[in-house]
C-alpha cells in the first residue's frame, strides 16, 4: 500500500513538479495558470479543486499532516502501519471494501508515508467521485483497525522492511544515514520503524494515534479532473462537514515536536561502516541542511544539481567519467523536510578502488568545488533542467493534484510555486559559492559506507 519515502531522493521534484491545464509560454518565459478553487470547511478540512475536462477521469489526493516525526519510542513505524490499515475497512464500508470499490469501479489507489506526511490517492472514471468522497469520509472518522487484519498487516510491514532496507545495501545506507544525521530529533526515528516496535506496538496505540491525527483540521484534499467544482464542494460538505476536528491540535503537535527540537546534535561528525552483501562499496556523505522553504534550502537545491545531478555534473565529471575514474556513479541531493534538512552525496565505487583514499579525494574535491563548479553556465543549466522537471509528468490529473497538495501542505499556499520560480531565478553565482562554503566545505559530516568487506 505504500511508496514509503518516495520523495526522499527526488527533492527538487518535490519543490518543482506539477501540471497545468493551461500553461502560458510566450517569449520563452513560462508561467503556469491554474484555475484552482479552494474552500475550507468549518471543521478545518481544506479542499482544492481543479476542473480538467481532457478525459472523463479524476484523481483524489488526501494529505494528512502526520508522519513519523510524531511517533514516540515504542511505537515507531505507526504512521506507516496505520497507512496500511487505512485500507482494511471502516464502519460503513467494511473489511476489504475500499480496494474492491476503487478497483471494481475501474480505478487504482495507493498511499505513501514520509517523516512529515501520510498521503492517500485514487484515480477513477469521473462518475465515481461521490463514492470516493463517501469512502474517504468513512475511513477518516470510523476506521475499524480489526485485530486479525492488524496482526497480518504487522507481518506484511516486517516483510516490506526486509525488502526495502534489510536486504538492500542502498536501503541500509539510507536508513542509517537518516537515523544518524537526525539523531536526537523527531526525524531520528525511521519511517518504516524499529523491528522490535513493529513486533510489539498494540492495536490500541495505533488507534489512539489515528484518533489524534486523522482529523479534518489536519488534512488537505485535492481533486483534479473531469469534475464540477460546485458539486465537489457540496458533496464534501455533505460527507465531511459533520466530522469533528481534533481540539487544540496545533498545540498538541507543537508540544510534541518541541520536546526534542530539530537542532542537529553538537557532535554531528560520524563515520559508520556497515556490513553489506555487495562486493563493491557504496557510500553516503551527509551535511547539515535547511528546512523546506528556507531561502538557503533553495540555494542548496541548485548546488546539489550542479554538483551531482546528471552526466555533466561536477562530481560525475571528476569521479565517474574522468581519465582515472573511481566511481561507477555519484549523485547529490538536498533533502528538505518540513522542520529540517540534509544535503547528501551518495555513490558506488568501481571494483578495486580503495574506499579510504577515495573519501579523502572526495573531501578535497568538495572543498575546491565551491570555486570551480559554480559558474553562470552551470547555474543556467540547472534552471533549464528545473523547468523541464516542473513540467515532467504534468499531463496527468494526479500530477496536478500532487503539485498543488505539496505546496498547500508545505507552504500553506498552493500558489507558492510562483514564488519558488522567482526564488530560484533570484539566486546568483556568488550566493551559491557562499552557501557551498557555509554548508559543505570542511563542514562536519556523517559518512556511512556499506559492502561485504566491512
Amino acid at each position: 500500500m505504500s511508496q514509503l519515502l518516495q520523495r526522499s531522493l527526488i527533492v527538487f521534484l518535490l519543490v518543482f513538479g506539477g501540471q497545468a491545464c493551461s500553461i502560458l509560454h510566450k517569449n520563452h518565459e513560462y508561467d503556469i495558470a491554474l484555475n484552482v478553487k479552494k474552500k475550507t470547511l468549518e471543521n478545518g478540512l481544506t479542499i482544492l479543486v481543479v476542473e480538467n475536462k481532457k478525459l472523463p477521469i479524476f484523481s483524489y489526493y488526501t494529505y494528512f499532516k502526520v508522519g513519523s516525526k510524531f511517533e514516540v519510542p515504542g511505537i515507531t513505524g505507526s504512521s506507516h502501519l496505520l497507512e496500511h490499515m487505512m485500507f482494511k475497512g471502516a464502519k460503513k464500508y467494511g473489511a476489504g471494501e475500499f480496494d474492491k470499490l476503487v478497483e471494481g469501479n475501474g480505478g487504482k489507489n495507493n498511499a505513501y508515508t514520509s517523516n512529515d506526511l501520510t498521503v492517500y490517492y485514487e484515480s477513477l472514471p469521473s462518475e465515481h467521485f461521490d463514492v470516493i468522497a463517501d469512502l474517504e469520509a468513512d475511513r477518516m472518522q470510523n476506521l475499524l483497525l480489526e485485530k486479525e487484519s492488524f496482526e497480518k498487516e504487522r507481518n506484511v510491514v516486517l516483510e516490506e522492511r526486509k525488502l526495502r532496507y534489510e536486504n538492500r545495501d542502498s536501503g541500509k545506507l539510507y536508513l542509517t544515514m537518516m537515523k544518524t544525521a537526525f539523531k536526537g530529533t523527531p526525524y531520528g526515528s525511521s519511517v518504516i520503524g524499529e523491528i522490535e516496535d513493529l513486533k510489539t506496538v498494540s492495536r490500541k496505540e495505533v488507534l489512539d494515534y489515528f484518533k489524534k491525527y486523522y482529523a479534518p483540521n489536519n488534512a488537505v484534499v485535492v481533486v483534479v479532473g473531469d469534475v464540477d467544482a460546485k458539486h465537489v464542494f457540496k458533496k464534501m460538505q455533505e460527507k465531511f462537514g459533520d466530522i469533528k476536528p481534533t481540539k487544540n491540535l496545533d498545540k498538541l503537535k507543537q508540544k510534541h515536536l518541541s520536546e526534542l527540537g530539530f537542532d542537529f546534535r553538537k557532535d554531528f561528525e560520524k563515520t559508520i561502516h556497515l556490513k553489506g552483501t555487495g562486493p563493491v562499496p557504496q557510500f553516503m556523505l551527509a551535511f547539515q541542511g535547511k528546512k523546506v522553504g528556507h531561502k538557503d534550502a533553495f540555494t542548496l537545491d541548485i548546488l546539489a544539481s550542479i554538483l551531482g545531478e546528471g552526466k555533466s555534473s561536477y562530481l560525475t565529471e571528476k569521479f565517474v567519467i574522468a581519465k582515472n575514474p573511481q566511481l561507477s556513479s555519484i549523485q547529490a541531493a538536498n533533502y528538505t523536510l518540513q522542520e529540517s534538512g540534509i544535503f547528501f552525496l551518495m555513490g558506488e565505487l568501481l571494483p578495486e578502488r580503495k574506499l579510504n583514499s577515495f573519501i579523502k579525494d572526495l573531501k578535497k574535491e568538495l572543498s575546491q568545488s565551491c570555486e570551480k563548479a559554480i559558474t553562470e553556465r552551470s547555474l543556467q543549466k540547472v534552471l533549464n533542467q528545473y523547468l523541464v522537471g516542473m513540467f515532467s509528468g504534468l499531463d496527468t490529473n494526479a500530477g496536478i493534484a500532487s503539485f498543488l497538495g505539496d505546496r498547500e501542505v508545505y507552504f500553506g499556499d498552493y500558489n507558492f510555486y510562483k514564488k519558488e520560480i522567482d526564488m530560484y531565478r533570484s539566486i546568483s553565482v556568488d550566493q551559491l559559492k557562499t552557501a557551498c562554503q557555509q554548508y559543505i566545505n570542511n563542514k562536519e559530516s556523517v559518512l556511512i559506507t556499506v559492502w561485504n568487506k566491512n
Partner: protein
Amino acid sequence: MNFRKILLVSLLLSPFSYAKNYLDENLQSYKWNGIDIVWMHDDTLPTYDVTFYFQEGALGDKPKLFGMTDLMFNQLTSGTKRYSQKQIVESLEFYGASYRSKVTHEFSLFNVGGLVKDFVPTMKMICHLFDNADFPKRELNQTKSRGLSRLKNLVTDHSKIASRAFRYESLKGTGFENPTEGTIKSLKNISSRDLKKRLEFFNKQAVKRVYIKGPKEVKELKGILANDCKWKQGHIATAVPVVKSLPEHKKIIFVSLPNANQVQLRIGRVLKTDEVNIGTEELKTFAANHLGGGFTSQLMQVLRVQKGLTYSAGAVVAEQGNYGRALIATFTKNKTLLELLESTLATIKKNSQKIDQKSFVLSRNNLKGNYLLGLESTTDFLQNLIIFDHRGKDYEEIYKFSKKIDSYKKSDLEKMIKELFGRQKQTILVAGDKKLVQVLKKAGFEVEVKDYKQYL
C-alpha cells in the same frame, strides 16, 4: 449492498468514446523520406517527446557480444570527431534534455524529451550523434567497467537477481534467454569497432519509425532527420526466431543467495510464437490482471490479505512479435516459503477451475478502467502505439478493448488462466538462502541448485 450496485452502473463505455474523439482529433501521420511519422499534437505543455523506433534489437547481437546494441545506444554520447563526451552531455543537459534508450530482443527505442524552445538544437545534436558517434576506446572501457561493477553488485538486490535468473531459465533454448544488457563475459568482448558497425546498420539498414508528442514546432524535425541524421528508410531486420516449444523444467530451480532472510519466488513460462498475436491478447491481460493485477487480485487477496505472507504479488503477461512471457512474482520470509509456494499454486489451480461471479466482474471493471487511465498521459499513449505498430495491430483495437473484455465469459478466463499458468508448463524458480533447499526437498519437490553468479 453498495458495492454491487455501484459495479452495475460502471459500464465504462462512454469514457472510451470520449478518449477516442480526443485522440482522433490530435493524432496525425506522415511519411518523411520514406520514414513513418506519428505525431500527437499536444500544446498543453511547452515540452516535446520524440521516440525513434528501430525494428532491430538485441537478437542482432552476435553470441559472444550480447549487450552490444544496448551498449551502442548508451555510448552514443561518448564522443564524435567534433565533440568530446564532456561537451556532448553538457550541451544536452544545458538544454534540459533527457534521453534514454530501451533495447528489447526484437526492437529498440531511443527517446528524447525537453523544452520546445530548445527542440531544434537538441535534435540536431542527437542526429549529429547518430551520424558521427565515434565510440572512443577510453570512454567505452569506462562504461564497460561501470557495467561490470553494476552486475557484480546485483547481488544486493535479490528481486533483480531472481528476475534475471528466471528469464534465462524460462526462455532457455528459445533464442531470447540472454539479457539485452549483456553479461560480465560478453561485455568484455565488445570493441569500438563492433559498436560503429552496429550503429551503421541502424542508420542505413534498420526499419525506422518516429513518434512525436508536442506542439507544431516539432515539425522542424523533418529537415533535421533528412539533413543531420541523414536517414532514409531501411529494409533489413535480423530474423526473429520462432519459438516452437517450451523449455522443460521438472525440477524447481533454486538460486542460492548469500545471507538472504527473504526468499523470492517466480513462476511462469514463455509463450510460443503460435500463441502470440492471435487475437487473444486482451484475454491474456485479463487473466494476468485477475490473478495479480492489483490489491483485489486473487494472489494479493490470498497471499497478503488472508495469509499475511508477503508485501506484494503480481502477475503479468507480455507479448512481442514472435514470443511472449507469462510471469508471477512474489516473495516471503524464509520460514513461510512452502506456504507461499503452495498457496500460489493452489490459487492458480482454483482460478483455472472456478472463478466466482463477484471477482470476475470486479477484475473486468478494474481492467477496463485502468486501461482508460493508461491513456491519460500522451507520452504513455504513444508508447502504446509503438508496441501496437511493432506487433502489426490496428490502433482501433485500443478503443475496442472495453467491448472485447466485456465479451469474455468466466469460462474463457478460467481456460486462459489454465493455459498460461497451468502447473505442467511452468518454470518455477526460488532464490534465497541455500538452507531452504532441504525444506523444499522434504516437502517432496525436486530441486536443482544454482549459484547466482552464473546469471551475471
